[in-house]
């Protein structure tokens, strides 16, 4: 298992670190990931992975009714947006 590459992870997570931050965080993450390594030493054949808690969760019982619900505080939601133009949220250009 390759150790964590901070630069690659930052790109995936859309997170920019300063060189100082990267220098500090890199070793910290590697240390914790090394500690995660204990999980590789356990015998886990034939054990199902648990996605959730041990008891049944409501959503396992089926879907809710397909009916339209209206959120009444739309103005307040829109007020939180930093940059707007008409009915659009403004963002910088998107490069590939």
């Amino acid at each position, binding site marked *: 298992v390759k150790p964590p590459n901070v630069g690659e992870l930052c790109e995936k997570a*859309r997170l920019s670190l300063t060189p100082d931050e990267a220098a500090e965080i890199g070793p910290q993450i590697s240390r914790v990931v090394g500690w995660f390594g204990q999980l590789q030493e356990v015998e886990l054949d034939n054990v199902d992975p648990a996605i959730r808690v041990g008891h049944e969760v409501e959503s396992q019982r089926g879907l809710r009714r397909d009916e339209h619900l209206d959120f009444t505080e739309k103005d307040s939601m829109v007020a939180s947006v930093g940059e707007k133009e008409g009915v659009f949220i403004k963002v910088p250009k998107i490069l590939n």
Partner: protein
Amino acid sequence: MASSLGAQAHAHGYGQAQAHGYGDARSARFFRNAGDLSPSSCRFRAAMATASASILASPAIPRSKPAASQISRLQTQLRKKEISAVEIVTEYLDRLREKEPDVKSFLHISSSALDEAAEIDGRLARGDDPGPLAGIPIAIKDNLCTQGMPSTGGSRILDGYRPPYDATAVKRLKESGAVLIGKTNLDEFGMGSSTESSAYQVTSNPWDLSRVPGGSSGGSAAAVAAGQCACALGSDTGGSIRQPASFCGVVGLKPTYGRVSRFGLMAYASSLDVVGCLGTSVDDVSLLLNAIAGHDPADATSSSKVVPNYLKALVPAKELPGNPLAGMKFGIIKETIGEGVEPAVAQVVKNAVVHLEKLGAVVQEVSLPTFSLGLPAYYVLAASEASSNLSRYDGIRYGPRVVADELNAMYGASRGQGFGAEVKRRILMGTYALSAGYYDAFYKRAQQVRTLIQQDFKKALEDGHILLSPVAPSPAFKIGEKVLDPLSMYLGDLMTVNVNMAGLPALSLPCGLIEDEGSKLPVGLQLIGNAFEEEELLRVGHIFEQTVPTW
């Protein structure tokens, strides 16, 4: 001295804001900006502050008698017209302001608390019943959305954010007549065990101001312990209600996953998060749970199971039979009282066990063989879920946005500047664990360990046992002591994380004090029950707190 300058700034700033009739945003900023954020300044503050100053001399915290319900007492006085809601809220607000320069529990104080109290008085005068929590001042952890007040999650990335809705738990408290007195400090987005990773301020433990209140619900626990509110809401993903409750000597309840709606709780790890309660007695925590528990169509993981009246399970001390726990079986978890736990903590917990036995209980040792694997498994799962949940903080729809020419650069800079170090670490570790090629090695294995832990609990609980353990391996540690080594912070969560992975309910109960460097520090006993059996935990907890020798 740094701390008294801080105190002056607080008092002066707040006083000015009030005098000029500024809105709450202004007064909130005075409070927020008076503290400095970096770990080095925390250590400076800790060093400069009177080494073990405690602010618990106040008569507001009953220490010489068994824990009594604040809510019941206040409701009785209110209904008998011996006191008004305005007088209740005024008393708590005065105490809040008095303690706040030292404790710094609050990120925001409600500017409408007295108006709301006046409205409660008006309704009572008209013969209306505002609800079972009428006039009770309650503090809300700042990762719960409150429509009338800012909600930052303890993060700069939500600086100034005002949610367009209330969290369901908050809405239900309001419907019960509660007065929401303010928003409390927390580790950023719930990630931490000391409240030191708040982007805004460090909260001090009221028992010893040079120590942490625990985390991530440290602000809520400290506020309750200091009498700044009657009780509080918190959240618990890996111990974030129970551990601060233990460190601050208050009662903390982590309900069963699904018992309380998560709608409006800023998600950290969606399969682990729960909303829960803190108070100075089991009665108060039960009353809070009554108000907030129950199915919510807005939360697909909330349970439709009927909510009992949790107060009904609690019998007053004088009506208890001689052996109130006769026939009850408890299992103390072997892996939590040996190596890795401070001997003084293990001793206090063993004394608590002796007390339970005197009440008629049978206490055996039980073993959960996969116990210690839970900690790395938890951190893999929590970090992975967090890396997904925190993608939404992108500077576009809410929160501060850093200007950039191009979208990815904007995301990177907004998130890079908006998130603190611990959150960044967890997002990156989670991203790693979920990456193609690493999924099997980490995430899947963590899920498999989760299955084993659930199986171990199921076996141990099926004999009708309630499980016991210390809440934390140590009492409250010093501010700054663990910030330089994230792993040392994680290791303190050993006793609590497995409960979240199984989704079980657990109660943290003050059970004694330890003396450390001249300070008296509380220790909490953890009681773990079967899913949706909060009644049993609260019943036993209530008997324990009513009969335990005073401390």
